[in-house]
């Protein structure tokens, strides 16, 4: 039954590929990783890997917001912090989309505080009162550390 053999082989190949992807993912976060924020999940933590850190030092943290669902146009502010290995949190800066559903690429100054270890924390601040039926969903690409 060639069809059945082909099906089995395909499943094995798929398992191998999935396993490979999974193993790779356990040690490295791909650059096309997307993060999702909403009214219930208001912050994300991205650990800094050595390979992400510019040799010349980090001058800016760049955040690419790829999609915003915000039909009621609530004002959105994103606060960006650096958390050192010792869990000391330092505010780096903040930004807002304008209009409040307009994606874009933003930067905040690293202020010579971001090191090659620790984490970047992105927090969504919605100063308005959010009703239970309101939707606020934000999609963000993996943040990058820029040397200039």
């Amino acid at each position: 039954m060639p069809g059945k053999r082909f099906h089995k082989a395909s499943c094995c190949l798929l398992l191998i590929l999935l396993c490979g992807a999974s193993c790779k993912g356990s040690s490295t976060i791909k650059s096309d990783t997307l993060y999702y924020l909403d009214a219930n999940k208001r912050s994300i933590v991205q650990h800094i890997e050595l390979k992400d850190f510019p040799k010349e030092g980090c001058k800016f943290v760049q955040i690419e917001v790829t999609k915003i669902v915000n039909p009621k146009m609530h004002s959105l502010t994103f606060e960006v912090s650096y958390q050192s290995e010792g869990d000391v949190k330092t505010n780096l800066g903040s930004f807002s989309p304008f209009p409040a559903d307009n994606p874009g690429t933003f930067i905040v100054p690293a202020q010579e505080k971001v090191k090659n270890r620790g984490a970047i924390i992105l927090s969504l601040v919605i100063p308005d009162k959010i009703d239970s039926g309101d939707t606020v969903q934000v999609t963000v690409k993996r943040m990058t550390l820029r040397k200039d």
Partner: protein
Amino acid sequence: METLSFPNLDRRVFIKGLGFVSIGLILGTMGGCEELADAIKNRPTRRRLRTGSPEVDADIDTYRQAVTLMKALPAGDQRSWNNQAAIHGTAAGFNYCQHGTNHFFDWHRAYLFYFEKICQKLTGNAKFGLPYWNWNQNPDIHPAFLDPASVLFLARTRSSMTGSPTITTPTLDPIFADTNFFTFRQQLEGTPHNNVHTYTGGTFGGTASALDPIFWMHHCMVDYCWYKWNVDLGNDNTNDPAWINTDEIQFVDADGNPATVTAGITTIMPLLSYQYESSAIGSSPAIAAIKTKKEYQALEARIRAGANIKFEVKQRISIAEKAAVSIARPFSKETRLSTSDFAGILNSDVATERIFASIEYAHLPATSDFAVRVFINLPNANSATSIDDPHYAGSFAFFGTEQPGAADQGHQHQQPKFLVNITDTLQRLKRNQELRDGSPISVQLVAVPFGGKFEKEDTELPLDKIEIIVTPVVIKNAR
């Protein structure tokens, strides 16, 4: 293509440069160098929006009047309130405004510049300057914008920026510490600019934001941030020709005509057309107004480095060469040119090229107590001829005349050259049928003493040459 440049803006040439740029920039609104020098010195002040200041109260009154008048203009008038706002955007989306691009600063500066001119024209108050809302020092919206019965009101979510971190000193200081034009722009736009829009909310938070009268005060503050970063804090704008030569479009001048300006020209607008009443932003303090010669020279040096003025000459016609001219005797020269030679420019409302008289002297006079007025086709023009005469084209003067021997002391010698835009005068004379197709164009130079009497009547102005040139205005940065 030939390039005429003013690479060394000494005090005298500096004024020339400003005169030239202003003629290109503020077409027809100023007569010439005499008025221009005064106009630059007394240019409108943009004050910090606040309570308790009679000057600011007067500015708000003028602004209220301007908004009322703009709202009353017919829908077809491009200066009307809705049409002005629509240049930026409508509820359907942004139109011509630059957001998220490297032309965010310059596009909005030009937008404010022309809007301010419209306010001045409609109210008859040429001294009016748009007040700026310094949200860092005064987070609350000024009460004049909160009265629902006022034309300055539009519904907003909040009446204060208090509570937002984006306008605070800890947020702004690191942004202002950035010395890179592009990343400074990106931060200032993404952080305080965007957040003030959306945190305040209402129409102001969306793409039709320019319908809210507070929009212009907010963007005036954004412009002041750029000014402070560039002029007060000594950071340089980009010298990328691709940026400098970009045309910013879709503006409307005070008469309702389409207007375009290059990004490069916007960098010197605050030194020509308006000035800011200084105030602190974050830890950057208010800076005292320039009063001393030394301070002026320092600013001059920065302008020299940051905005080297050039323009491309497309056509050059010599009409006179070497002549000894006394200041007490008007000079007249008839040319072989006629309006037919410039029909493409003179018969078009949208021509981007301009016709200039270029007057070059062998050297400057020892005294400088006079200006030289330029007339077209008025052979009898003399020092009593009014600048309101339709034949008047413009004027230039000699500021800070060189001391004898200065050129030998390491100062770069420069051929004194002055430019007067004669396009409007030619168009006016043609329209009035005082200059017919085919009839020759003549140029007159008339020295006029500032104090009514020449200090030395026998002063000679050795003329090197006079040319008629055709050129679009271009600014290039030397660095």
